[in-house]
C-alpha cells in the first residue's frame, strides 16, 4: 500500500503535465497510436497481405486516428473539470457536516494569511524596496553622540554645526537639514486641517535629487535671501486635498500664524505620504 496522498499527488502531477506540457502529452499520444498502427500493419503483412493493402487495412481497422486523439484529449480535459467539481463538492459536504471544524480552518487560514501579509508589507517597505530617490545608496543620516557613552545617538545639531559641516569640502557632496515639527494645523482656502509638517533647508530637495511634478524647483536662495515662506506639498496631499489642480502653485496657505506660498510639488515617485512638507528657513 502506498500512503494515502500519493494517488492525489500522481493525479496532480498528471494534470500539471497535461496543462504545462501539452505538446509532450500530444507527442506521447502520437507515438502510442503510431506504434499501434505499425503493429497492425505487421500483423496484416504476416497474414499475407501486400504492403499497400496491409497499411490501408490497418488504418481501416483502427479508424480515425485524429478522432481517437481527440477522445483521449477530451478524457484528460473533462477528467480535470470533473475531478475539480467533485473535489469542491466533497469539501462543501465536509464543511456542512462539521461547521465548527470548517470555521476553525477558515479562521486559521485567515489569521495565517493576514499575519504573513502584515509581516511581508513591513519587510517589503523596509528591506526590499529602496528609497524612491535616484541614488539611495549614497544617502546617509548624520548623527552625533548624545550622552556620555557611544550607545546613544541624537539627531540634534546646532545651526552653526550644520553650516560648518555643509560648507566643509568633505566628506559629504551635499548636506541638507530637516526638522520634524510634528502635527500642526493648516488653513488652505476655507477649511482647516491637521497635517504633518517638516522644516527643511533650501538645498533639501536638490540634495536628495527629487524632481518636481509641478511648479518651480526650490532654490537655496528661497530661504537664504531671508524670504522664507515657501512651502512644498506632497503629491498625495496635492491629489487628496486639491485634486491635482495645477493652479495650486503660488497659492497662499496658512500654517499656524505664518503664511506660505506653495512653490512646487515633488514627483509622485519621490513623494512621501505625509500630507505636507513646509519649507521655512535655515
Amino acid at each position, binding site marked *: 500500500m502506498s500512503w494515502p496522498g500519493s*494517488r492525489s499527488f500522481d*493525479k496532480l502531477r498528471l494534470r500539471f503535465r497535461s496543462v504545462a506540457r501539452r505538446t509532450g502529452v500530444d507527442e506521447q499520444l502520437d507515438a*502510442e497510436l503510431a506504434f499501434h498502427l505499425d503493429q497492425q500493419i505487421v500483423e496484416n503483412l504476416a497474414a499475407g497481405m501486400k504492403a499497400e493493402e496491409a497499411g490501408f487495412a490497418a488504418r481501416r*481497422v483502427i479508424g480515425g486516428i485524429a478522432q481517437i486523439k481527440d477522445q483521449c484529449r477530451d478524457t*484528460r480535459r473533462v477528467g480535470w473539470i470533473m475531478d475539480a467539481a467533485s473535489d469542491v463538492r466533497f469539501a462543501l459536504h465536509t464543511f456542512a457536516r462539521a461547521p465548527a471544524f470548517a470555521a476553525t480552518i477558515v479562521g486559521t487560514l485567515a489569521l495565517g494569511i493576514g499575519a504573513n501579509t502584515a509581516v511581508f508589507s513591513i519587510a517589503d517597505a523596509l528591506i526590499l524596496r529602496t528609497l524612491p530617490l535616484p541614488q539611495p545608496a549614497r544617502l546617509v543620516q548624520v548623527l552625533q553622540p548624545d550622552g556620555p557613552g557611544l550607545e546613544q545617538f541624537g539627531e540634534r545639531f546646532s545651526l552653526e554645526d550644520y553650516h560648518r559641516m555643509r560648507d566643509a569640502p568633505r566628506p559629504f557632496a551635499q548636506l541638507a537639514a530637516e526638522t520634524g515639527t510634528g502635527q500642526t494645523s493648516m488653513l488652505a482656502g476655507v477649511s482647516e486641517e491637521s497635517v504633518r509638517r517638516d522644516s527643511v533647508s533650501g538645498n533639501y530637495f536638490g540634495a536628495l535629487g527629487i524632481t518636481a511634478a509641478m511648479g518651480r524647483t526650490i532654490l537655496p536662495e528661497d530661504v537664504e535671501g531671508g524670504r522664507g515662506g515657501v512651502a512644498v506639498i506632497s503629491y498625495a496631499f496635492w491629489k487628496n486635498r486639491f485634486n491635482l489642480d495645477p493652479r495650486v502653485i503660488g497659492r497662499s496657505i496658512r500654517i499656524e500664524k505664518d503664511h506660505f506660498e506653495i512653490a512646487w510639488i515633488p514627483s509622485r515617485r519621490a513623494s512621501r505620504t505625509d500630507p505636507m512638507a513646509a519649507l521655512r528657513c535655515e
Partner: protein
Amino acid sequence: MGKPTDLVQGTLDLLILKTISLEPAHGWAIAKRIQQVSNEVLQVQQGSLYPALHRLEQQGWIKGRMDETETGRTAKFYSLTAAGRSQLEKELASWDRLSSAINLIARLA
C-alpha cells in the same frame, strides 16, 4: 465461431486492469491479450481502448511510461498502481455479483 462480441458496458476498465495486473503492457498488447485470452470472443476497439487508458491514467489507477519494446520501438507501457490494484478488486467483486445475478435470471427464471 461468430463475430467478436461487443464488450458489455463498463467491463472494459476491468479487462484492462486485469490484463496489466500481471505485467506492464502497451495498448496493442492489451488489446491482443484480451482478444486471445477470451478465445477471440472479445475484441477491444482502438477507438475505445486508448480513451479508456487515458481515463484510467487520469484516475490514478494505471501509470504510463515510455519504454522500448522487444523490437526496439518506443511505446507507452501501462502498469497498475496501488490504487489501481484495489480498484481491480472492487471491479472484480462487482462483476461477480452482476454476472451471477444475470446467471440466476437466465438459468432459473
